[in-house]
């Protein structure tokens, strides 16, 4: 640094850091830190939009714990996650492997498989609800009848298992694109020489996949799994649009429960306690994602030094 820089200028330059940070920290304090404190406080109170909050210690948590409807939503969401997470991860990897081959006209398949993940939920759910129309000329009913897979028109959302199957399939169709992009990015980092060398040693396709591809994309897969678990426990839009939680509450999810308690019945305190329950279930995956993120911070820093 040149000596001509005065002390005054130096101080101004470094104090300036706080000014750079200030606008963001203001919103950070207001909409991230304060809400976390409020979320904790609210869960110990009977709390509504108007009127004085009343301190009730653990009553919210106990009421939720003793509510069979809550456990029903926990069960629903957990089953959804258990099926949808591996399905989406494997489908995403599979599609990425297909798209990573050499072929002509790469843009169209990329648009078709990946772009839906960037579409808003309501638009695509409107279309799916229409495809799954209950009458015989509904698109799904029509073609499935024609192919002989079903005998007559089906009401897709009247039976719990069928409704869940539809929600899982639609969700996978919708969000798999993120995973595809993620894996495509990772696959393209693998040096081709590794495959060449292994092929010379007579390794088959499966061996190549297990011994070269998988180790290279392992971290990305962990990240993807964590992300999908977090997404699965946030399941709301699909249920809101397609089934409204029905039939008979069988597709109600944890966030849907939070929505109806907190915002339809305006019991904010109890809803806050529900959000802590959700947090407890998924915090492990949030931490896992954070650990991978931290790792990337460290590697970015060592690169600089």
């Amino acid at each position, binding site marked *: 640094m040149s000596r001509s820089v005065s002390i005054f200028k130096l101080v101004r330059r470094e104090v300036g850091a706080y000014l750079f940070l200030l606008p963001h920290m203001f919103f950070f304090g207001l909409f991230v830190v304060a809400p976390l404190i*409020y979320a904790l406080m609210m869960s110990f109170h009977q709390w509504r939009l108007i009127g004085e909050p009343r301190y009730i210690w653990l009553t919210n948590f106990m009421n939720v714990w003793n509510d069979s409807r809550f456990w029903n939503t926990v069960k629903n969401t957990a089953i959804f996650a258990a099926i949808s997470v591996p399905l989406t991860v494997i489908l995403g990897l599979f599609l990425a492997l297909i798209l990573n081959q050499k072929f002509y006209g790469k843009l169209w398949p990329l648009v078709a498989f*990946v772009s839906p993940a960037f579409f808003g939920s309501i638009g695509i759910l409107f279309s799916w609800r229409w495809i799954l129309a209950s009458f015989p000329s509904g698109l799904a009913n029509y073609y499935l009848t024609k192919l002989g897979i079903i005998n007559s028109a089906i009401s897709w959302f009247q039976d719990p298992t069928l409704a869940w199957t539809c929600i899982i399939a639609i969700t996978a169709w919708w969000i798999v694109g993120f995973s595809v992009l993620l894996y495509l*990015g990772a696959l393209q980092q693998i040096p081709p020489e590794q495959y060449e060398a292994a092929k010379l040693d007579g390794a088959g396709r499966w061996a190549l996949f297990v011994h070269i591809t998988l180790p290279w994309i392992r971290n990305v897969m962990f990240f993807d799994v964590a992300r999908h678990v977090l997404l699965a*426990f946030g399941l709301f*839009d699909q249920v809101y649009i397609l089934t409204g939680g029905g039939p008979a509450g069988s597709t109600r999810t944890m966030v849907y429960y939070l929505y109806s308690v907190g915002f339809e019945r305006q019991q904010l305190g109890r809803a806050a306690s529900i959000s802590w329950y959700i947090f407890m279930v998924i915090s492990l995956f949030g931490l896992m994602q*954070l650990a991978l993120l931290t790792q990337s*911070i460290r590697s970015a820093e060592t690169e600089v030094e």
Partner: protein
Amino acid sequence: MQFLSGKTERQKRLFYSVFICLVAILWFTPIFWMLVTSFKPTNIAVAENPPRWIPQPFTLENFRAIFKSAGGISISLAFFNSLLVAIISTLAGLSVATPAAYALARMRFPGQKVIFWTYVGVLAFPGVLFLVPNYYIINQLSLMNSFGALILPGLGGTFGVFLLRQYMLGIPRELEEISWIDGCSRLRFLVTIAVPIIRPALITLGLMSFLGSWNGFLWPLLVLTSADKFTLPIAMVRFSAGWGDPYRGIGPSLAAAFLSVAPVLVIFVLFHRYLMRGISLGSIGK
């Protein structure tokens, strides 16, 4: 693919290309069907059997319908609300996050480490935890049913700061020191030198925040109450519900759905490279 073994490399690749192209068409059916239906009169769309892939008769009536207000809901107004909110959210978000990221990447000051790791740490909390308290805070700030309720909470997010900081670490220090000798202030350095260097990251982050705002559903559903403030997804749901059963307004509803999807499709085709970077950057080190 044993049966292809006799063919040349070129023929194999051609076959593979056609195959993938066809599967992709099948995969995209919901979007095609949305578009096709939006050009059919509703009474025909609901009644015709077999369902037709070429609208017969072809009509623009559905698109005309969503540009008029129906049942107090105007899809076209909602479209512009969404656009306005998404643009302001994106620009405001970038202008708040960029200087913060620069300070965390390049300046030395007391508390820097603490602030940075707090920013990273809060990323472990899922979004659902913030719904209830932010709803309350927005109400206390008298921002209920305003665009402020949609725009402001996002400005506190730390992921963008984190992402931009990672990029800023890559700016050579020498560049900065030279600029000081020339009497360049931190702010001028940031605006005239750092920002152009990290432009790809800004585009990536900007696109992600635009799409996040454009597609947002649950939060606007909570804080918006009057039709003149509705964003497109909320207006679509209310509009569709206004017909009683979902099939009766299927034509206009799917026209609206297509209107919500089309801009995203354009963005994806033009910028998918940036989106790809955004997704993988959030995830991994080397």
